């Protein structure tokens, strides 16, 4: 395993309901960098995060994360590994019965034996980092979508993880929240020395902070490179996706019989 890489994936194949989501995929994630996995909805981007986190097991192939052979890990080892990973879910996934403060304190209470005063300081530091120290007594139901995602981010970084996984962090956010999140992801990655993986289909936002991008389609990696390189990529699929063209290799029309035949039935 290359020492520069935090994650190395080789010949990974994964199927769901008889459909191949990934077909012999090779991929590596560099330490300390922000890597984006991009592609349209339904291409298995979230599945890839679940495979990295060990929530799903591949049919075959290898997935090494910082020395761990993830698919072969015992349940105990897997849970050990997950303490070093933070994940931001698309739905934020805050515990609805706990306040903002308790949500962020949750991983600290579960995995450390820190005193209450130290937990208090740490929670406030994490909330300050996402700009929500003043919202610590609110319940998740009182938060806007953008605020909920920032609280979830504070919770995800509570244990200072080595690796952060972001599942569609920009989906459903207004422009201000989106700008805040883009800035936060970049700032946290650089300040905490983490490695980040962003799964997204929001091209401009992701490209503005990613060091490297993989474009996924039909179970394969169809393009990869830095955002600048991908802008110039000649692959028709990558071109259509990166530039957001309505028609191309991915057709505008769902397959159907000819329009004329349909109308004059």
């Amino acid at each position, binding site marked *: 395993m290359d020492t520069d890489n935090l994650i190395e994936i080789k010949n990974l194949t994964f199927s769901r309901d008889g459909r191949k989501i990934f077909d012999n995929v090779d991929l590596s994630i560099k330490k300390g960098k922000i890597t984006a996995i991009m592609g349209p909805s339904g291409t298995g981007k979230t599945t890839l995060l679940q495979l990295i986190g060990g*929530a799903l097991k591949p049919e075959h192939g290898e997935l090494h994360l910082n020395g761990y052979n993830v698919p072969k890990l015992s349940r105990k080892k897997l*849970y*050990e590994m997950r303490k070093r*990973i933070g994940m931001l*879910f698309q739905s934020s*996934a805050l515990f609805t019965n706990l306040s903002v403060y308790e949500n962020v304190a949750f*991983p600290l209470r*579960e*995995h450390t034996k820190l005193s209450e005063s130290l937990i208090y300081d740490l929670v406030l530091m994490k909330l300050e980092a996402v700009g929500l120290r003043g919202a610590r007594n609110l319940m998740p139901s009182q938060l806007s979508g953008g605020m909920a995602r920032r609280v*979830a981010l504070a919770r995800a970084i509570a244990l200072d993880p080595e690796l952060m996984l972001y599942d569609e962090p920009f989906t459903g956010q207004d422009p201000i929240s989106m700008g805040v999140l883009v800035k936060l992801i970049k700032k946290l990655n650089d300040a905490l020395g983490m490695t980040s993986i962003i799964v997204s289909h929001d091209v401009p936002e992701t490209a503005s902070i990613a060091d490297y991008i993989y474009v996924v389609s039909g179970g394969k990696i169809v393009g990869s490179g830095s955002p600048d390189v991908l802008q110039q990529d000649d692959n028709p699929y990558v071109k259509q996706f990166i530039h957001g063209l309505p028609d191309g290799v991915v057709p505008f029309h769902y397959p159907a019989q000819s329009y004329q035949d349909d109308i004059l039935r």
Partner: protein
Amino acid sequence: MLKSIQQLGSTTINRVNEVGQAGVFILKTLIRIPRPIRSFPLLMQELYSVGVLSLPIIIVSALFIGMVVSLQGYNVLSKFSASEELGQLVALSVVRELGPVVSALLFAGRAGSALTAEIGLMKTTEQLASMEMMGVDPLWKIISPRFWAGIISMPLLSMIFCAVAIFGGYMVGVHWLGVDNGAFWNNMQNSVDFRLDIVNGVIKSVVFGCLVTWIAVFQGFATVPTAEGIGLATTRSVVYASLAVLGFDFVLTALMMGGW
């Protein structure tokens, strides 16, 4: 014809599969190192929401059931000039059958459905997945305290049900219909056996508590993560739990009465 046989086969296999999954699920929940100090606050919280909050419906239903049994019983017994036996009739029917069964059915409707919907919603909003990704096992954190709270609350609720139902029967029988106070209690004391009636009733309610909570937490955990999925899981939880309670009641009664 062939198709319907095929369908029957596949449905049966699916059901057996589901029972197997539910078995593995509960074993995974139960076989783990107990952490009493960390689990205690969680258990207390669940005992409150599963047990204490079920008290009003249990008490009100028990009162009415005791009153109705007394009224119906008096009607029949008085034809044979045996209305003094009312205490015995009320106590035996409540302690042996109505107490454990009705309280378990009410428990399935009140607490079981709430457990399924709560866990199902946690699954739908990815709270369980996020917990797992944080390295915290939801079986330990979410399922285990709820399961134990169900097992502990059910017999207690059932005992409260019996006591309140007997009180309801007493109010109607003695204070309204005029059965002799002494005869009512004396006949009850003479006929109710501690081991055969009360202990067996408690055993039944422990089994029912186990069944209802097991079905509720499993249905919640196995919910298809959609709004429709939660609705279906909640319905299934109440239906399966009610059928299981009634079915097991017959089996347990047959086993308990076997030696009589």
